[in-house]
């Protein structure tokens, strides 16, 4: 279904400065692909949340940025990879307000609401990979909630 993906970029996540760089990079990629301002802002915000999770909970890692196509649709896919302790209870972690890091507890659940496609793959002790995909909405894109 999907055309083969070629990684377009792989950025490290190891410090606050890396997060700032990542936000700028994602904003630029999204703008280049033709995302609207609202979609851009949502995507950048989701990326910021997930990258901070990678940094704070996963002990750092990297993000892989690819641009998949599905027929005529073009999208932006971000994979946040860490080899930290993993998430023991995914449902709990996705609950609004649940936090172990002293934040608002909205990062993971909020990021899920901000994007069209959200896949969380975690193995306790081995690490966590969160992949989000957003499609350019030239024509109406199905939203997970509307299906």
């Amino acid at each position, binding site marked *: 279904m999907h055309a083969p993906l070629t990684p377009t970029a792989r950025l490290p996540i190891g410090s606050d400065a890396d997060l700032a760089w990542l936000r700028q990079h994602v904003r630029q990629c999204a703008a280049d692909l033709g995302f609207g301002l609202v979609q851009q802002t949502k995507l950048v915000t989701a990326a910021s949340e997930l990258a901070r999770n990678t940094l704070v909970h996963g002990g750092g890692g990297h993000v892989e940025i690819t641009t998949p196509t599905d027929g005529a649709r073009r999208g932006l896919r971000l994979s946040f990879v860490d080899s930290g302790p993993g998430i023991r209870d995914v449902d709990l972690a996705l609950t609004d307000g649940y936090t172990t890091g002293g934040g608002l507890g909205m990062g993971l659940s*909020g990021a899920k609401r901000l994007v069209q496609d959200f896949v969380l793959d975690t193995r306790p002790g081995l690490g966590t990979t969160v992949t989000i995909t957003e499609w350019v909405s030239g024509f109406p894109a199905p939203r997970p909630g509307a299906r």
Partner: protein
Amino acid sequence: MVQHDTAPEVAEQLSEFLKRRREQIAHRWADAALFSNVFTVSRDEAVEAGRAVAEALADVARSGRLEDIEAPGFDTVRDQLGRMTSARTQSGYTPTQIAREVAGLRAPVAALLRAEFDDPADERMHACLLELTVLMGTLRLVVLETTINAGEELIARQRQQLLEVATPVIELWEGVVAVPLIGTLDSSRSQVVMESLLEAIVERRARYAILDITGVPTVDSLVAQHLMKTVAAARLMGAECIVSGIRPAIAQTIVHLGIDLGSILTRAGLADALAYALTQQGIAVSARPTAGADSR
């Protein structure tokens, strides 16, 4: 560290050569790009700098630590090389270009060294040339090291400056202060923002504090949390906080993210926030009636 095998007598001979011919070396270097582009005013200065470098190389050669960038001999010229490379960096040269210029210093010395020997097949000449190459390679590393250190110092200084510059507190009206936030609000910056705002509230006896986030590109949950904490702290100081400059895209994002900013007073623009603060204080601002205007 893997040490290159240097026969002491070869290093000694190279050192003696560098010391004896330092004037000629310095004159040739004065015409090389690295020196001539830095010391543009006076050639004598370039020659003097070149002489210092040649003497330093002679010292390093004598100590036998030809591959050691921490050899004491280099210390005497480190400052000078630092000044030279920072002059080059400021005129837009990259470390690669500077490294290439340093590499260009080897050939004139090698030519002088070759001229010392009558027989072009002399074993000792080849040994000396090899040592010279090693030594010049080390010099190149020393120069690069000073270049990078200078760059890092510059970045650290600029980061510090950015922290101070980016958070001015402005008094908009008696009792109304505003902070226009610009750029990334990471933890250290938001700490500075909070401190300067709270200080301004005390200093200016402000009843209203406006945080304008027009210049903040992304409001994620951490930024929102920083805003909430700042608002709560200002409230403890007896000031009411208004967050302004929330753009449409950011408003939608905050809603989807699920952050509840209901406890915070928000306004679309800075002007609205100021108008609110004035109205609350019973101040009405109206246009002055002009001569041609309708009489009321």
